[in-house]
């Protein structure tokens, strides 16, 4: 079984597969983005309280969700790589980090841009915002650690440990609005009972969320491909691949 997975996850096969997947997900991502942005900017109604500024929701919420999701992916892939020694997983974990950092940055930036007109402040030190900022630091620390350790295998394993230590932060971010009285609002969509958002706004929001997800998958695969090429530059299959291409 394990051998089977390993073979499937051999760098060569993965490279070929990822080339295809990038195309599919890239295409889907583009379509969804167009639909979501048009839906969000043109077709969705303004909010009864927030007016037009509510349109920031279509970029803020997906970014924020992805910032958490990517961290889980990073820690999960890292752990799998750590335990079963699957190279591909290490590469995926490592390539997720810059994307996760970008999403976190976007969540912080769009949140601030939304907070200024709505709350009246760019920034407050409440639990949600603070823990999200710590998430950004965690991503940056992970990236710094990766670049500081030479040996890729060792870097991947060390990174996995760091990611696992930091994962405590994820539930804190998610539940902070319930545990503490924050300025940030409580859950809207992710409530278990009916979401308290009108369907006309929910649809573009979900479209955008899907678009972000497809974007993440294709972007992470692209990065992983680069890393793989660099890692395996001396192996036979890379030589053949490049040799064919340059001819």
């Amino acid at each position: 079984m394990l051998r089977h997975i390993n073979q499937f996850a051999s760098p060569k096969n993965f490279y070929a597969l990822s080339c295809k997947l990038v195309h599919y997900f890239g295409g889907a991502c583009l379509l969804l983005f167009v639909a979501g942005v048009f839906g969000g900017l043109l077709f969705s109604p303004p909010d009864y309280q927030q007016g037009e500024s509510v349109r920031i929701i279509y970029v803020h919420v997906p970014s924020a969700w992805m910032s958490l999701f990517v961290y889980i992916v990073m820690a999960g892939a890292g752990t799998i790589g750590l335990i079963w020694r699957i190279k591909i997983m290490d590469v995926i974990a490592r390539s997720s980090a810059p994307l996760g950092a970008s999403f976190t940055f976007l969540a912080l930036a769009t949140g601030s841009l939304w907070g200024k007109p709505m709350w009246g402040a760019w920034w407050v030190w409440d639990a949600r915002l603070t823990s999200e900022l710590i998430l950004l630091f965690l991503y940056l620390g992970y990236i710094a650690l990766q670049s500081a350790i030479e040996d890729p295998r060792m870097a991947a394993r060390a990174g996995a440990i760091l990611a696992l230590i930091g994962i405590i932060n994820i539930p804190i971010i998610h539940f902070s609005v319930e545990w503490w009285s924050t300025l940030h609002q409580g859950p809207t969509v992710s409530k278990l009972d009916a979401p308290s958002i009108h369907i006309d706004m929910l649809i573009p929001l979900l479209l955008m969320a899907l678009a972000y997800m497809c974007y993440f998958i294709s972007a992470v695969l692209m990065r992983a491909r680069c890393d793989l090429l660099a890692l395996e530059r001396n192996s036979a299959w890379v030589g053949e691949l490049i040799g064919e291409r340059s001819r």
Partner: protein
Amino acid sequence: MNRKRRNVVFAVCFIVAGMTIATTLALKAFRENLLYFYSPSQVQAGKAPQSRPFRIGGLVEEKSVVRNPDNLTVQFVLTDTMQTVTVVYDGILPDLFREGKGVVANGKLRSDGVFEAFEVLAKHDENYMPPEVADALAAANKPITVNSVVKPE
């Protein structure tokens, strides 16, 4: 092998015990209040600091907002449906500042019990809907679901 297994069992027990204690403590902590802001009830009960700035949160009472026509000074009453606190503020209010909606004010308690704010933040709820729907709901006299600011003790 035996010794190895014993070590593993020992380690697992250790970790499980530790995690249990830690979560118990954390849960206990959440039952206490780790406040980002105080409610009017707490302020009236004297639980808020007297000499230094703190945050207070609640709903703006209907029809309590008084604007000074000469300058930007505003006065309004904050409530958590049990107790109230009067707030004065000199500055531009955020867009979401409405009567009946939640705000968080940052400032000091004066000796006369009036809260002098140097910052007013609007706390909004988690409901999103088009204005027409909100009007329709209002017409049907359905309350828009509970506002999360109000957590009476």
